[in-house]
């Protein structure tokens, strides 16, 4: 089984629109949305949810006022300033370390495990999909990403599907690190802007750090042909294959408004032709050609 993870570094370069288009081209794939913080893939996939489960994260301190003697040990030991002078825990500040729980001489602090999101197994017109929703202001996004990827892998195995396409989160932090480990290959959707290049370089460095093969696809390449060339040169210098260019095209937005992938909305248009070439190039890269 192979897993292609779509990343970008910078947000808004076209990860989700292209993931959805790739799904249209792949014959029966497993879809996985690892952008649990601002998941959008479902807006194009309209998944029919088959199974809904709670995601349990860590605990949060809760002071039992009947037992509390006001000694202040918890306030002194909390490194997050999460406990007020009148012994109320700020849920947003609480890191979930439990130090206050363990050191309270009266055992007056509970540590209930929190439900901090939900995850779903769904059916879509392109194949099954595993996705999630992390609660607002929650932590543990990396754990939830790991969970949806594991579930996608398990379900793909059960159903005999040999390709998972994972829509990744922006950035290079916790949820991105959880998205790349063990992937067959990562494709970075880069845009030819100063920020797009800067962020692509960091995403590329991250993939190298975790020894995951990486590919680059340039989106909106015609917005700045010089920067497009810069990206191609950078990729070449780093031995990263460039799987193609896609022009800036407002059709992507029009398709999104209709809840369709670009290839469904405009199957014979020029952007579609570019995407088909990119998809073929991805599938024939050494990393994706390697047998399991």
């Amino acid at each position, binding site marked *: 089984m192979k897993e292609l993870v779509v990343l970008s*570094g*910078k*947000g*808004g*370069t076209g990860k*989700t629109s292209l993931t959805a288009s790739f799904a249209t081209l792949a014959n029966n794939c497993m879809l996985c949305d690892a952008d649990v*913080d*601002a998941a*959008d893939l479902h*807006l194009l996939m309209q998944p029919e949810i088959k199974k809904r489960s709670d995601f349990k994260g*860590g*605990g949060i301190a809760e002071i039992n006022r009947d037992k509390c003697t006001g000694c202040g040990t918890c306030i002194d*030991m909390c*490194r997050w300033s999460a406990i007020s002078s009148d012994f109320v825990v700020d849920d*947003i500040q609480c*890191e*979930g*370390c*439990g*130090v206050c729980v*363990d*050191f309270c001489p009266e055992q007056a602090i509970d540590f209930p495990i929190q439900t901090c999101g939900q995850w779903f197994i769904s059916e879509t017109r392109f194949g099954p999909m595993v996705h999630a929703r*992390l609660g*607002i*202001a*929650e*932590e543990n*996004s*990396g754990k939830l990403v790991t969970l949806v990827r594991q579930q996608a892998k398990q379900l793909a195995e059960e159903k005999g599907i040999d390709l998972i396409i994972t829509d990744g*989160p*922006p*950035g*290079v*932090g*916790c*949820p*991105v*690190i959880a998205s790349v480990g063990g992937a067959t290959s990562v494709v970075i959707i880069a*845009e*030819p*802007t*100063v*920020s*797009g290049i*800067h*962020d692509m370089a*960091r995403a590329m*460095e*991250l993939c190298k*750090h*975790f020894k995951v093969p990486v590919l680059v696809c340039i989106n909106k390449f015609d*917005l*700045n042909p010089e*920067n497009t060339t810069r990206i191609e040169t950078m990729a070449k210098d780093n031995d990263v294959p460039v799987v193609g260019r896609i022009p*800036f095209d*407002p059709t992507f*937005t029009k398709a*999104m*408004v209709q*809840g369709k992938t670009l290839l469904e909305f405009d199957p014979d248009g020029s952007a579609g032709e570019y995407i088909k070439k990119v998809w073929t190039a991805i599938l024939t890269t050494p990393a994706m050609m390697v047998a399991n």
Partner: protein
Amino acid sequence: MMISIASGKGGTGKTTVATNLAVSVDAPVHLLDCDVEEPNAHLFLKPAIEETKTITTPVPEIDLEKCTHCRKCSEICRFKAIAVTDELVLTFPELCHSCGGCMAICPENAIREVGRELGVLEMGAKDGVSFAHGRLRVGEAMAPPLIHVVRACAPENGLTLIDAPPGTSCPVIAAMKDTDFVVLVTEPTPFGLHDLKLAVEAVRMLKIPMGLVINRSDMGDDRVRSYAQSEGVPILMEIPFDRKIAESYSRGEMFALTYPEWKARFRKLAEQIKTLAGKGADVQ
């Protein structure tokens, strides 16, 4: 006064709004780029960096001479950052949240704290705008502690603008919390709207007044506008799609400096924000 610029969805134009606002208003103004995973504001403001600091977070180091393998440290650690066997003590610094529990519980005083590098803090200035940002070390997972360090650079006086990371989880909260106003930058597309709703919920949780900037305002549909209206979130500015603006962005230019009419609009935006923040005009 502290204004954070956030979005929910990435790539909607947070940095565009933050940098153009910074160069349009009167000094003293401070720009803090808190998107430490992918900081971009410096690519547009182009400040001269005057000071660089390596930022670390404390993680345990075990003195094996003193350790009796009692396992109390691994029992207290809720992040599985210490494992103890009869023969071995292993620490996993990348899992450590720096709570200090292990050091406090160790009966032998065998644990001291050493620094794990989170990244760097860089500070500088350009044309009356003072600047700071954090750059998370590639491979480091925890952004919030570095964001707190960048936030601590905010001076008492003047206007501070915070360029926040995308999303609605802990890094965004760390960037927005306790600011006086949040500008949410969105685009009028289904993705933009979906993530905007999450961002609005997050800002409400923090009880901060907010307003909207709609970028590429003519590409998409009207659902963002009707949502804003029904929720009572004021639309402060609309930036239509203009290929010239997109191309100048791609080169790292700030369009408020190229087009004086935009500079005037950003100044007006700052005035509107000051009025709304002053009123504490939250939309419940």
